[in-house]
């Protein structure tokens, strides 16, 4: 049973981060808080990917150095999830940039960023 828990602790954290992110998106009134919730939500997926790349035992980082033989696979981290996460983080940053541009456009037109007021004003 311990092994079961020991093996899965990384995934509990992903789920917890996801819950925080979703809470931020769903229940917060201010739009900027929603965007922050979104960023946390994306961070949870990044955490998940990175956690699956690890291996038991002493593991060197993904940059090959000359004294550790490359042939023995278990000496190195699995580099693929890290590569994927570079892309996911960049995509997250781009989405955040676009979200803040939209927020400025909304603010200039409605002078408020509170969702309830916005809906009333739009009626």
């Amino acid at each position: 049973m311990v092994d079961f828990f020991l093996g899965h602790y990384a995934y509990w954290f992903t789920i917890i981060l996801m819950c925080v992110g979703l809470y931020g998106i769903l229940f917060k009134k201010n739009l900027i808080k929603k965007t922050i919730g979104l960023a946390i939500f994306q961070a949870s997926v990044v955490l998940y990917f990175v956690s699956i790349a690890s291996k038991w035992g002493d593991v060197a980082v993904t940059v090959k150095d000359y004294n550790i033989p490359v042939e023995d696979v278990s000496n190195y981290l699995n580099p693929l999830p890290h590569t994927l996460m570079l892309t996911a983080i960049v995509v997250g940053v781009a989405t955040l940039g676009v979200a803040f541009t939209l927020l400025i456009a909304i603010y200039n037109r409605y002078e408020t960023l509170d969702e309830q007021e916005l809906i009333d004003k739009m009626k």
Partner: protein
Amino acid sequence: MIESHIPALIALTFVVFALLIPAFGVWRTEYSQPLSVIGSGLAAVFSLVGFLNYLNEGSLRYFFGGWEPPIGIEFVYDGMSAFFVLVINTVAFLVLIHSRQISKMEFPGKEMPYYSLAMLMLLGFNGMILTGDLFNLYVFLEISSLSSYALISIGDRQAPFAAFRYLIIGTVGGTLYLLGVGFLYTVTGTLNIIDMSAMLQLSEIFDNSAVFAALILMIVGIGVKAALFPMHGWLPDAYTYASSTSTALIAPIGTKVAAYILFRIIFWLFSIDITDAIAPVSYIVGILACIGILYGSIMAIAQSEMKRMLAYSSISQIGYIIMGLSLANPLGFAGALLHVLNHAVMKACLFLVSGNLRMKEGHSDISRFDDSYRKKYPWTMASFSVAAISMVGLPPLAGFFSKWYLALGTIDNENWLFLAVILISSLLNAVYFFRILEKVYMMNPKKDQKEAAEAKKNEAPASMLIPTSVLAIALIVIGFANAAIVGFLFNIFPV
């Protein structure tokens, strides 16, 4: 030599033009619109050449960077992707021609970034269809959704807020999809679709609950983009407040590409028996699609503004396509794909008509339609009626055949609920389309004839009329030529 590079060329023409438009825009911004038309036209030509080439040589796999999958990434150019790419590029080409006049009215100073983003959005859509790698699909998904958020945010006063809501829901969907890919990668160790589906067939893998969770996550994630019933909240606002060109670009294409990915996930990645073995997934998706159809049609009747009505009707039409997929038999599959083609053409034509009306009348509010339109815009109203009749599904036009095959599919599968839903929703479609036709054509004479008679013919400018009428004519042509199309659709069903 060119044929072997076709899949890459289709995607890369968009990159080239997405870079050319800002480069030219530095000193002459009025070049942006013609450049975007040339770009999408070139891509349409490439996809046509590729499609014909596919017919006689069979599918094509294009390895980027010279590495075989599963190490490298590959573009798979088989029956379905060739068909989809052709449909999407031709519709986009026509819509971009139409947008010349409207752009002056709706976003005066900003042609350059607008058209370059339209190119990037099409790149994202084409990439999503062609790619054979799950993570690469996520990258293209993000490119297309980022640019569609931007295209939606240009428009009326409420447009940025509608775009912002779409951004939040869309990014949550994208991230869920990514998590699904993460689960699958953990279990199978590869990202390539074909390679992974080979692994998933083995029994001891797919009973693992991770695969089940991944399946649900991906369907939910992509369902957001396809506006499947519970996740469609963003669509009505986004389509109504956006400028008519961006709606005409996003509506016919965006949801179809997401439906295509849903299809690829359910049928190729997991193959039908797995999905049914894990859980009656295709049945649940079918039920959701039916609710979507009914909800969309009922809400469409209640709308007074034409674009909002069309937005709700596209929710219901998407329900048709996804229901066709969930039937999991050749008939339902052919009906769904034919409906993709029909709906793309119909919806593009209808949104172009609403664009014309907005251009000339300044509004597209159904309650203020009147008899004078018949005189003022004979061509626009003619193409509107063709598209409306085909949407409802009357025999000579294309819409009828796709509903016909969907109905056959449901009979073949003996779930009468779906059949009943198709019939009811066709009636509902009839209601909300014919009330417009009735207003325009069969206006009772009590209105004074003088005002209607003297409304002289000031039709929308030629460049807006040609695409609208070309789409209407295309509907008729597809209506007659559908035997060949369906024949082609049947043999690419990967049963």
